[in-house]
């Protein structure tokens, strides 16, 4: 019932994610530096390269201002910090939470530096998508989304102050139910072809690029709420479906895997999650075991040796 440790609760060894970076024309060596810049560390000559975000000129050199991974686009060198808020880009899929309901818009927390905005005009309304917005819609905004609601959306545009504007005008976007949310550092989410992942264990995972991950019961393709006969009742419903015990356990298992990966800074994708899930099933670990630091470490070790 009670288990103790004398460690501080942080990961004991901390293998940090190295984003595949190798560049021969630069003097900076990803191998010796574990792929991570230190603040103040010189990276390249400023005569050959241009400075991007996360760098500053240090005489004839370009030095990093943050601890992070190097990124290069042609001659532009930038450092992406390991630990930071989510920097939005248009088209990103994000999981977000409603913070406030305002006139004709919702304020949304999407792990960015500022709250995101979801306009009433960028959501699907009941009664077909091409419907005009009525005054009555403005008055019943809370029937669509209210404070605390989770939603999956796409970054649509930016405002002048840099805040992102979201939209949910797709079948796959909208309110989330039947599951639980886990937060990880945004840098760990790889950009994938699709961020809606159906894992083999019968669990759906939405990997928001902002570091919010939604783990939920699998919904079959043909049972998704359709565009035709758009049903506000089910799209904006707060009621969960019936979820059996096996699915609930699978959801917990996936959530715990994600938490372990976040602790060890291991990049997260659907493939990795499937592999980790299989590893756990193979080794016959109980749900509770996953909270154990040793097993977490073993999982990461197995992931980085066997599956790469």
């Amino acid at each position, binding site marked *: 019932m009670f288990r103790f440790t004398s460690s501080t609760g942080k990961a004991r060894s901390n293998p940090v994610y190295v984003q595949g970076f190798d560049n021969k024309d630069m003097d900076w060596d990803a191998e010796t530096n574990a792929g991570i810049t230190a603040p103040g560390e010189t990276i390249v000559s400023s005569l050959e390269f241009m400075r991007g975000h996360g760098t500053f000129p240090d005489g004839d050199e370009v030095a990093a201002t943050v601890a992070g991974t190097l990124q290069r686009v042609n001659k532009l060198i930038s450092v992406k910090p390991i630990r930071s808020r989510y920097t939005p880009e248009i088209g990103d899929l994000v999981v977000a939470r409603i913070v406030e309901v305002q006139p004709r818009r919702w304020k949304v927390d999407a792990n960015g530096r500022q709250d995101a905005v979801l306009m009433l005009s960028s959501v699907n309304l009941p009664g077909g998508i091409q419907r005009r917005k009525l005054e009555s819609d403005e008055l019943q905004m809370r029937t669509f989304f209210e404070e*605390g609601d989770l939603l999956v959306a796409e970054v649509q545009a930016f405002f002048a102050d840099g805040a992102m504007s979201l939209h949910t005008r797709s079948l796959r976007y909208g309110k*989330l139910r039947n599951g639980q*949310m886990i937060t990880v550092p945004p840098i760990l989410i790889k950009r994938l072809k699709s961020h809606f992942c159906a894992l083999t264990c019968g669990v759906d995972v939405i990997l928001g690029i902002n570091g919010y991950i939604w783990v939920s019961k699998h919904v079959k393709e043909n049972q998704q709420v359709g565009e035709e006969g758009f049903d506000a009742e089910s799209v904006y419903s*707060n009621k969960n479906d019936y979820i059996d015990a096996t699915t609930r*356990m699978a959801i*917990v298992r996936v959530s715990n895997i994600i938490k372990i990966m976040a602790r060890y800074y291991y990049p997260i994708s659907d493939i990795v999650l499937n592999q980790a899930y299989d590893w756990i099933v193979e080794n016959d670990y109980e749900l509770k075991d996953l*909270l154990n630091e040793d097993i977490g470490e073993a999982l990461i070790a197995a992931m980085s040796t066997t599956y790469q």
Partner: protein
Amino acid sequence: MATILSKAEKSYIVTSLTSSPPLRQDGRAPHDYRIISVITGDEVAPLANGSAKIRVGGTEVVSAVRLEVEDLTSTDAHKGRIRCNVTCSPAAYPHLNGNQQDDIQSDLTSILQATFTSNDGSTSTTPTFLHQMSETLTILPGRKAWLLNLDAVVLSDGGNVYDVLFMACRAALWNTRVPKTRAVEYRDPTQKGVAGEKTINNDVEMTDLWKSSVQTKKATKAADFELEDYWDHGEPLAGRARCPIAITLNLLPTVHILDATRTEEQAVPLKLVIIYSFSQDGDACFAGMRMLGPGDLPLEYLKGLLGEGEKYAKNLILSLDSQLKTQWS
């Protein structure tokens, strides 16, 4: 973070807990604690007389004991006192404004102070924690005593802050060493000593004196004290085993869970904090109770919960003490 849960999330948590077998968001059984990390002594606060840092999941509390010499006036009787103070780091509750944080701080301080100083009017036959402890804290009976400052800082709150706070305080008190003191008397060098021996110094150690003089004189004669040895070589607090411990039960109509996370606390807001203290032989003594959050509780149900709580508290104290003993070599 100041997240409000959506209705779907809340109902998901509650349904999982009430289904059979009950399941929590991280796979724990309802009565399991998260892994408890304990650090005591110099690693936490080297300048304190005793200190401890407890981390349970996302909740982290540092507690430290500082002893201070206090002149006793006649109204204080012959006792050392204990003074509790809890501070919350602003990072623990970033969504709250200054006043709300102060409220939480004074809430936690008051429950701690009330529990640790509940000495008067005790109906129990065994001496209370404070009673036992104040014997160690006495320097010169009726004149001087140690004032025990028990300070706790809530560094972060990931749920279940009451249990962690009491655990940290218990660990810090366990870790405390009270410096040994020796009473000292001033005498006129021209006069002869009580025992008839000629004094060379102004100070005469009371211990020598007692051998030949009457015991009752010691309180009146002793004027001051000195430390016998180094600051950190002291004796442990008497009765530290009786230091109370809190158990928080988050209540649903049919089940209760222990050590709720912040999200679980939001979905299951009704909680019952029960505080127990245990004697050396393991006899439980009920030290306090608070019910927090909305809702009510049938009386019959409560009786069962108190018994359950006693069981949990006993287990927690046993495992915490064995952990503390291994750390304190």
